């Protein structure tokens, strides 16, 4: 039978662990709220930019009126031979299945593209570590290399960004986006996708692969692969969000969107300082940057939400464990007392 002292020691240790997981949960909840605010603050710009671009499409005759062909390289479709996939995971663990799920989705995407060359760029340490073990590190392909020798691997890791998620700012994201755009315009890649955990609210999340290049329709998210949350995950998230002040519903963005929709679309004759086509050319790349930025902001929020849920579950498990240990401890103590009484009684009986 377990020793009373040992059980007491276990209880104390589990209690300490519970305190840590509880604190981590609250910290994640606070970080989640901040991440949500940031994502919200980024919305007006994204919406305004989208609106301007939409209104410029018609003014600048971006699409050839006869053939319907796009006159901007970022809009042009072409055969997909080299694909770039940006995988966004977290830098840290202890977030439940957050990173694993993303990487599973990444493997699924890679499978669906088998037979094509895929270059992966990893954002986040967890994804980098996993992908680096699986795929060879390679230099980004240049166009001259054109046809690839058979020995070359079909899938390679060409870039990584570690430790950027907790100090995310637009200039940094822009440097990533700029590189992607340059490579696309130089025909080094024929399409670009971002795999990330989309986050509308704690209970409205999905893992999506979003096509960012070529741009097929401005203002539309082009989802190529999606996995919704399971009912069980949703219930767990609701449970975890209780008492943390994290809202379950997606933030209402309608007023922002309506305000943003007015931008540069007033019914007046604008003086164009630059020709509409020129404006469009210099604004369109920003659209790609904004989309990657949004992906990263949402992924950060989702990571905090996942950690909050995981830590809530850990806290509950610790509570269960303390309960059953306390029960075991009481039983042992009771048994000990009973044994002592029997000893005394039988001792007295023997003496009389």
């Amino acid at each position, binding site marked *: 039978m377990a020793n009373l002292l040992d059980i007491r020691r276990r209880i104390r240790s589990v209690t300490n662990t519970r305190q840590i997981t509880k604190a981590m949960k609250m910290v994640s909840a606070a970080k989640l709220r901040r991440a949500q605010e940031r994502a919200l603050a980024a919305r007006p*710009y994204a919406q*305004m930019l989208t609106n301007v671009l939409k209104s410029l499409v018609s003014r600048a005759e971006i699409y050839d009126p006869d053939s319907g062909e796009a006159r901007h390289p970022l809009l042009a479709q072409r055969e997909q031979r080299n694909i770039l996939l940006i995988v966004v995971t977290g830098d840290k663990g202890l977030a439940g299945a957050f990173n694993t799920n993303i990487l599973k989705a990444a493997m699924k995407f890679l499978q669906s593209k088998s037979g094509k060359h895929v270059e992966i760029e990893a954002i986040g340490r967890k994804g980098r570590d996993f992908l680096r073990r699986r795929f060879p590190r390679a230099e980004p392909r240049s166009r001259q290399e054109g046809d690839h020798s058979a020995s070359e691997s079909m899938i390679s890791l060409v870039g990584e960004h570690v430790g950027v998620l907790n100090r995310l*700012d*637009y200039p940094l994201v822009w440097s990533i986006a700029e590189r992607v755009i340059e490579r696309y315009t130089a025909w080094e890649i024929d399409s670009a996708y971002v795999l990330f955990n989309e986050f509308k609210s704690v209970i409205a999340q999905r893992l999506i692969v979003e096509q960012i290049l070529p741009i097929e329709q401005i203002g539309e998210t082009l989802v190529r692969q999606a996995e919704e949350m399971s009912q069980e995950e949703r219930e767990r998230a609701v449970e975890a969000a209780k008492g943390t002040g994290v809202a379950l519903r997606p933030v209402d963005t309608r007023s922002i969107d309506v305000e943003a929709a007015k931008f540069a679309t007033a019914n007046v004759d*604008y003086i*164009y300082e*630059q020709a509409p086509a*020129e404006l469009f050319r210099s604004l369109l790349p920003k659209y790609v940057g904004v989309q990657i*930025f949004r992906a990263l902001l949402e992924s950060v929020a989702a990571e905090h939400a996942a950690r909050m849920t995981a830590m809530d579950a850990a806290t509950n498990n610790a509570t269960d464990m303390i309960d059953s240990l306390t029960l075991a401890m009481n039983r042992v103590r009771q048994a000990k007392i009973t044994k002592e009484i029997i000893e005394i009684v039988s001792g007295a009986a023997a003496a009389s």
Partner: protein
Amino acid sequence: MADTFQFEIVTPEKLVVRDVAEEMQIPGKDGYLGILPGHAPLITELGVGEISYRVHGYTHRLSVAWGFAEVLPDKITILAETAERAEEIDVERAHDAKRRAEERLKNGNSEIDVRRAQVALERADSRLKVASKGRS
């Protein structure tokens, strides 16, 4: 006619300022534009430079880089990639950035490197200029 107009400066990260002004200077791509209330509707791309606006006798300055502006008679909306108020600019960082850009310009080998360095230099210069003027 109203003697002020509203304006907003928005970056990808947040709404930086929403205020009213009596007059404003914005760095258009092809040169500075001065704007008073009742300006004709106009759309322009922005370059790298300084936005200054006057209200209640104070002049406020911001360093901005790249973007897009819509001018309406009673409202200006500016989308800028970066926008910092003069008092927020980290002078030390701007100096660092400037030094780095100059170095890269000297040893830059590829065309892209040189172009990027030029852009960075231009931006650092603008920030330093705005910071040194501050609020007056």
